[in-house]
């Protein structure tokens, strides 16, 4: 019985491969952006995290085997403003001394449209972990792919902006995270 099964499994492995292994993608960091849009005294400003590490394993036909794991170096926050950037790492905001890394990981994917998907995910900023729905588009073009997403968060859900800053009057609660990753198919070992 075992002798009969083994070749059959091998054959299955060869033909069924796309159905249960997903592609590993490498991020082209120079052409990718992990940004955000926030508001201050009623006006929008943009920022980004310069250093992050995204592990993207994804295939539209192998969602069960797909996953995103992202580590963000919170201290790399850059809003192109020395005044703002000197405040964001402080204990009242990101507290990078105690919480240097923000994490994002997917728990499962659902297809929504042709190139649209939604990932049930976990996001950790500071010491707060919350489940978020992460809607995104994933478009494959040959050897490259593009992952784009907009995710609206409330900064106070994660304790970003404490004490007097917790009120929305001066710095708005809503923060739109804007993800735009350019991906290349990882070379197989």
């Amino acid at each position, binding site marked *: 019985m075992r002798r009969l099964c083994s070749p059959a499994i091998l054959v299955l492995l060869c033909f069924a491969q796309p159905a249960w292994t997903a592609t590993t993608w490498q991020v082209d960091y120079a052409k990718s952006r992990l940004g955000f849009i926030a508001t201050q*005294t009623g*006006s929008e*400003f943009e920022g980004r995290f310069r250093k992050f590490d995204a592990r993207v394993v994804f295939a539209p036909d192998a969602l069960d085997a797909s996953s995103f794991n992202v580590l963000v170096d919170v201290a790399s926050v850059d809003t192109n403003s020395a005044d703002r950037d000197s405040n964001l790492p402080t204990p009242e905001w990101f507290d990078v001394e105690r919480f240097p890394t923000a994490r994002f990981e997917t728990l499962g994917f659902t297809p929504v449209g042709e190139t649209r998907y939604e990932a049930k995910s976990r996001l950790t900023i500071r010491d707060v972990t919350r489940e978020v729905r992460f809607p995104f588009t994933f478009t494959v073009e040959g050897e490259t792919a593009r992952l784009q997403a907009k995710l609206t968060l409330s900064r106070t859900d994660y304790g970003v902006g404490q004490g007097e800053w917790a009120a929305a009057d*001066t710095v708005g609660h809503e923060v739109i995270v804007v993800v735009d990753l350019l991906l290349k198919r990882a070379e197989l070992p």
Partner: protein
Amino acid sequence: MQLRNTTERWGAGAKCLHWTLALAIFVMMALGWIMTAWPKSPAKFEMYFVHKSLGIVILALMVLRLCWRLLNPTPRLPKTLKPYERVLAHGTHALLYLLLLAMPVSGWVINSAANFPLKVFGLFNLPPLVGPDKAVQGQAEVVHLWLFWIVGGLLVLHIGAALKHHFVLRDEVLARMLPDQRSQRDIPEME
């Protein structure tokens, strides 16, 4: 009171601009001083927000004021003034006009270089004058502070001179700028 100036009197338009700006400038100078010393907090942000918004209003009013001045006759100075006093009066006024334009512009440059948004009283966005640049921000801050002291010095001269006209020389120079010109002093012969 008529709206326009005559060669003897300031009209309502000029008076209104003068006193609105006087009030705004004193609020700005006090606010500017307090907010920079204030500890980092939302209140500090709000003070900066009001300061920046009011600064843009002052800039607009100054432009309007210059136009109004050019389109109106200017009441003449008393004939009793000595030539150097005349030069001092015109010089102080010209410099005040110039620096009260430069002051808000330098503040606008600071805000632009700091890459802070500028939505005047939350109503409309103003574009940045320069791109984000820490060095430019530092230079503009130095200019803004120097302008503060120079404008402060000029205001001491301006107010001191107005009081001297009123209490020492006892002419109409201050009275004719007052909102309600009740004082009906004999106007010394104007040139």
